[in-house]
């Protein structure tokens, strides 16, 4: 557990009380609908998550025409797949190649393509990543256990405005003929942020 990012003991109790008190006030005044609040929580706990992004990647690996459209304009291409939650404008998809590996960060806050990846993980929003991704991306990759080939360049995208970036990881070898559903299982959230690579097919024992 990341100590910096989790409340302890009495501070936890204090936050629960303060949050509940404010929510009560907002409901009493008619500013928020408690059912809408519940729906938002449920949406982010169960309905929006990296599985959407994984499906986009699997489609791009399988369908060259879709991949071309995706790289030309992420928003239109993703919305053409008809997911329940629409993607906002200016989603840019950046492709990893043997020449260049992409990594996405928001040094200023926590901007993230949440419609396709769900809520960002604590590490993405924390000082270590936000400060080091632009300074020492290969060192950050090492923290994630990733070492790139010596001749692969790194490109870091700092999300300082409303453009959002999704990394299209490289398709692993040994997946020829796989269905999109099976391919999607190889696509990790971290591989779509750029702090990881897609999983490789399990070697049969």
């Amino acid at each position, binding site marked *: 557990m990341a100590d910096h990012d989790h409340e302890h003991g009495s501070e936890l109790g204090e936050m629960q009380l303060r949050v509940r008190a404010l929510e009560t006030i907002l409901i009493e005044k008619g500013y928020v609908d408690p059912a809408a609040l519940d729906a938002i929580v449920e949406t982010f706990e169960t309905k929006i998550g990296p599985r959407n992004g994984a499906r986009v990647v699997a489609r791009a690996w399988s369908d060259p025409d879709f991949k071309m459209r995706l790289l030309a304009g992420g928003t239109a291409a993703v919305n053409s797949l008809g997911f329940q939650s629409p993607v906002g404008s200016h989603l840019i998809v950046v492709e990893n190649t043997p020449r260049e590996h992409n990594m996405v960060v928001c040094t*200023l806050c926590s901007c993230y393509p949440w419609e396709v990846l769900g809520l960002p993980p604590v590490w993405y929003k924390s000082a270590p990543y936000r400060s080091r991704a632009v*300074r020492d991306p*290969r060192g*950050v990759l090492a923290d994630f256990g990733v070492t790139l080939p010596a001749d692969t360049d790194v490109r870091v995208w700092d999300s300082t405005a*409303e453009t959002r970036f999704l990394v299209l990881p490289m398709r692993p070898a040994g997946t020829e003929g796989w269905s999109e559903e099976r391919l999607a299982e190889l696509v990790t959230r971290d591989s779509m942020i750029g702090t990881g690579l897609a999983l490789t097919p399990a070697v049969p024992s």
Partner: protein
Amino acid sequence: MDGFGPVVEEPNEPPFHEPWEGRVLAMQRALGYAGLWTIDQSRASLEALDPVTYLSSSYYANWFRGVEHRVQSHGLVGADEIAAGRSLRPGVTLPRTLEPAGVAGLKRGEYERPASAPARFAAGDRVRTRNLNPVTHTRLPRYARGKTGVVEAIRGCHVYPDTAAIGAGENPQWLYTVVFDARELWGDDADPATRVSIEAFEPYLEPA
């Protein structure tokens, strides 16, 4: 800043570590929908937290502080009500309220606006970021001030955060992806095979 140590990933991390975090997110979204403040003002209110509090608190604890502050500064809730933990008088009328049926369609806001002038720069132009250090909100990170890079793409004309955050209007500006060599940003010892880009608004840039 440096010295924060390694990036530590929690395996199989849940969206919310405690129920109150989910409630904070939900309140933030629902109140944001009401249209009383801009996302830029929300970000600015977090940047206004004192650094020690900001760095030593969890993400959602800071968000909560921002929400608690904004509802007071916008006259929705009184400080006495916050202290009492309950409403003491009727609320004001909001421009709009989020209905449960509207939650499924929630997506990021639209910030692109019609341009009032042609874009000053084109893809391929060498530009230098200004050494801007406003005391108010900006989206030009400190590490990228006074640096020379190349315009890679034009991203349209968007609400300008520097003015939107302080109630000085949307003042739309052209937005560019500007890419820098790591050595330009961090010195000759930096990795020659790394580049870093930012999304830069036109007022941040000058020809190089």
